């Protein structure tokens, strides 16, 4: 019998701690598969990829990705990846960050990593809420969305409208490739994987900063079932956070 399918080698055997219906598991898998495929295709040497985990729901990502890993302080993953990449310029690096880590406490670090054109990939998971601390308002929380710190719904006059990170970073000269994806159906999951793999390919070619924003659900903190959460993402998040390529210097 021949093996026609097996688990990606870039994930450890550790069981994910994520809630039912959360998209982190899918996104982890897509990142790992993309790297694994590049290794199998002979484009990337095994062992020549390292990642940086954030603070937030994916804080334990260092236990799941089967390569050398860092666990960074809240929001600082792009700075950690910068230092590591400068020390190992031929190694492929990625940061894996949520919206509170990247779009709130870590805005300076991500903006300046893009500004310097740092040669690593950032996987940015946007679920419009603080997951790990239990459902507080994020900079990405939609106007009117109820959270534990916006119990009457996010009020734009009081605390602004949500930040569109992909669009914002695409205006920075140093960013090379930026795309927003979602994992709400099979077609979009395939598109997300293509985008992630393309970002890693650009890194192999020594291009500039790449970020893939992936819209994700948080059934637990949204107070919805996994299926309801996916519908909520489609009806509320995708209209405000349009999917697609925001910038691709390689295609210009």
């Amino acid at each position, binding site marked *: 019998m021949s093996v026609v399918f097996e688990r990606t080698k870039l994930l450890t055997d550790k069981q994910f701690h994520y809630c039912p219906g959360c998209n982190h598991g899918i996104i982890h898998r897509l990142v790992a598969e993309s790297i694994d495929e590049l290794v199998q295709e002979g484009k990337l040497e095994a062992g*020549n990829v*390292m990642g940086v985990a954030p603070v937030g729901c994916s804080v334990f990502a260092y236990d799941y990705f089967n390569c050398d890993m860092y666990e960074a302080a809240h929001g600082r993953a792009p*700075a950690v990846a910068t230092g590591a990449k*400068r*020390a*190992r310029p031929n190694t492929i690096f990625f940061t894996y960050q949520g919206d509170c880590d990247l779009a709130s406490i870590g805005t300076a670090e991500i903006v300046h990593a893009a500004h310097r054109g740092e040669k690593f990939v950032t996987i940015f998971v946007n679920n419009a809420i603080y997951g790990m601390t239990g459902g507080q308002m994020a900079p990405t929380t939609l106007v009117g969305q109820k959270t534990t710190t916006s119990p009457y719904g996010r009020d734009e006059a009081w605390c602004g409208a949500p930040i569109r990170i992909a669009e914002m970073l695409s205006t920075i000269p140093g960013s090379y490739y930026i795309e927003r994806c979602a994992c709400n159906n099979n077609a979009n999951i395939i598109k997300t994987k293509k985008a992630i793999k393309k970002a890693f390919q650009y890194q192999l070619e020594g291009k500039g900063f790449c970020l893939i924003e992936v819209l994700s659900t948080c059934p637990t903190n949204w107070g919805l079932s996994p299926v309801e959460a996916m519908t909520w993402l489609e009806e509320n998040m995708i209209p405000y956070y349009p999917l697609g390529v925001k910038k691709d210097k390689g295609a210009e």
Partner: protein
Amino acid sequence: MALTLMKGSEAIAEAAIRAGARFFFGYPITPQTEIPEYMSARMPEVGGCFLQAESEVAAINMVYGAAGTGARVITSSSSPGVSLKQEGISYCAGAQLPCVILNVMRGGPGLGNIQASQGDYMQGVKGGGNGDYHLLTYAPSSVQEAIDIMMFAFEKAEKYRMPVLFLADGIIAQMMEPVEMPEMVDYKVDPEKKPWACTGWKPGDDPAKRGVINSIYIDTESLSIHNEHLQAIYAEARANEQMWENYKTEDAEYIITAFGTVARIAKTAIDELREQGVKVGLFRPISVWPYPYDAMRETICREQVKGVLDVEVNEGQMLEDVKLGLEGAKPIRFFGHYGSEFPTTDEIKNEILKMKEGK
């Protein structure tokens, strides 16, 4: 070897390079900006990396990233900037990353001023960031001493897997002195010597050797084990790494305690007082963590010693360690300047004379 006249900040930067540092991440702040300026020109000459970070917060996290690969990494800043680094310093300590951090101290609190000060002693040796950790902390009192400490700083950081902090008052960085610069050390990352570093583990390799640079231990038991391990390292460092200087203490009736540049001013005061027949000496800690309590007690807790004068450019931060070490054995007087005014030899002499007269 020939003596060269060098500015302190540039000499310290060159010494770091000679000690094997090939990565510098920093942010401009007076009075240490000459260090990043020097590094920006010098690092490319030795195949190293200078990168100006967007903030001190980012700079120390870049240190975290580069040090995690096993490289020798250094960052420098001055007081308000070092406050910003505290988060990352605590993470470096927690993740046991060897690195060197320079604090060229200026006046505080807050924005304070840009003159030399010693106001960050407490921040350096009593904590700074969160959690139970220590840094090997040195307070040089001359440019040459700063160079000499730099030449072993990375080795100590690597031996104990803990960050090294230089507490240098602004004068050390700003003054020029004749110095002897050591030869270049040939340092290369050796994964055998740094098995914890991220050096290219791949699936199929020994899982225990996968590089995980991390300070989170989410369950109570594993965090306790981690902290016990850190405390065992700190105990070893306490036992082996104390450094101090005794100056004319053998027959002294009065002992001055001081660190950094203030200790040099005190030496002049001591020489002048001895010309007047007053027997004064100096006890100067060079490592301020670990503080040389035992050596200080041996120096001071002798019959002929009548009193101690602690002199600092702060409100008496090291004074607490002097008191802790002496446990009330001798009367202690404090003389300090706040802000960033340095004491004169006359002021120090007057304080000793007042003690002698029982005032």
